[in-house]
């Protein structure tokens, strides 16, 4: 077989920026990304949020597969890749071309971790996502498993079938299965971090410290023109009013 191109070969050549966060459930990445979005907007940047599993057409099929438990590791992987591909084509790439800052809560690395934890071939799933643009910055929120599990399990009443990895027959009890599944996903993330050069955030530190560090990571990649534009507008507003 000829050399099959794999993920990691399509850099972002648009004027926009793509910042993504990754980590297991309960790592606090979503909180940090929301805070980052508010800060970037206050600095005058155009920000677009992109969430995992958000394409309307594909979502109905994913929901059907989950509800009826039709999904196998392979179809779970493919339906999420379908959804992600639609998101890339419709949301992410056009926004990057328009010069926006795109923030993604989870990206291809979620699929690499979760699908391989389900037994999918690592090389196959990396090739599957070949079409995806490499982010400007990817931050992995590292947290001890028991901390993340405590955050999730103390707050949420009911875990869903696939979320708990019940399709893998790891344990008959949903909570126990969830713990084992999260441990597997975390082990995969630890392989992915050096493989793709993800930045690591110590997610046990206080929220405001993490946010300061996240802003520091993002700052070198920001387009100074955006904040200049903001100050110019501020001047115009002052003289005009």
């Amino acid at each position, binding site marked *: 077989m000829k050399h099959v191109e794999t993920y990691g070969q399509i850099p972002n050549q648009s004027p926009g920026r793509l910042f993504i966060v990754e980590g297991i459930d309960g790592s606090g990445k979503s909180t940090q990304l929301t805070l980052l979005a508010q800060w970037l907007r206050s600095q005058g940047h155009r920000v677009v949020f992109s969430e995992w599993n958000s394409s309307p057409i594909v979502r*109905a*099929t994913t929901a059907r597969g989950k509800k009826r438990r*039709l999904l196998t*590791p392979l179809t779970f992987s493919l339906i999420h890749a379908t959804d992600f*591909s*639609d998101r890339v*084509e419709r949301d992410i790439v056009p926004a990057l071309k328009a010069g926006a800052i795109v923030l993604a809560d989870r990206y291809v690395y979620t699929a690499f971790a979760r699908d391989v934890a389900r037994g999918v071939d690592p090389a*196959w799933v990396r*090739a599957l996502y070949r079409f995806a643009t490499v982010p400007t910055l990817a931050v992995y929120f590292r947290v001890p498993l028991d901390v993340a599990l405590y955050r999730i399990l103390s707050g949420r009443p009911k875990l869903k079938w696939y979320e708990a990895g019940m399709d893998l027959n790891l344990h008959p009890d949903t909570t126990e299965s969830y713990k084992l599944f999260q441990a597997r996903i975390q082990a995969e993330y630890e392989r992915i971090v050096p493989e793709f050069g993800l930045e690591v955030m110590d997610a046990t530190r206080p929220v405001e410290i993490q946010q300061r560090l996240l802003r520091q990571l993002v700052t070198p990649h920001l387009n100074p023109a955006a904040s200049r534009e903001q100050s110019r507008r501020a001047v115009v507003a002052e003289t005009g009013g």
Partner: protein
Amino acid sequence: MKRFESYGGGLPGVSLDDLSGWLIVVEGTDGVGRTTHVNRLRAHLERLGYAVAETGLSRSDLASRGIHRAKQGNTLGSNAFNLFYATDFADRLQQQIVPALRSGFVMITDRYIYSLIARAIVRGADPDWIKKVYSVALRPDAVYYLRIDVENLVPRVLADGPFDYWESGMDLPMGEDLYESFIQYQSRVIAELDGLAREYGFQTLDATRDVDAISEDLCARVSRLLQDRRPALATPLS
């Protein structure tokens, strides 16, 4: 020895050790008459006493509805469409094809990964990429390729009604003219199938012939295959 294996790394969580039966693929472009020939082949094999099962594109329990909805509005990106079809295929592979083979059926599939690969390539997918995506597929016992050229295809398609939007590649930038687009699109699909025929070793049948001549040819070839390649599990007496 294993009766079946996948082209690539295998199917996650699925054992291929206990498969018997046969996996027969009928390939060919839109309107070539595949459905007619699959029906006749099925009847022929059932007369001989074989248990026959059948599948075809976008017939999965999981994704068929979603694909039909997406086609109505042309609302899905083209790469996403390729992956939606791959999802449909993977579901049928695991829920229909593998169980049928496990039970010793002759599984006839009206198109397989090859049409899906050809269509994706015509829609701009990287050939190596889409082949890698479909490398989970089982290697079939035989692929019978009903080959026709565009000139001979046009009158057949028109006999069945007007040109179809998707079969004419109207989602592609090939112009507003349905007929011109059909010719261009189908020529490209057929060219890709011809390439895949060499790469994957199809048996090519001349589909410009009379319908009865084609189906006799196809039935004879499949009967021969089934006699030559009896699965071990199917011969308990001797």
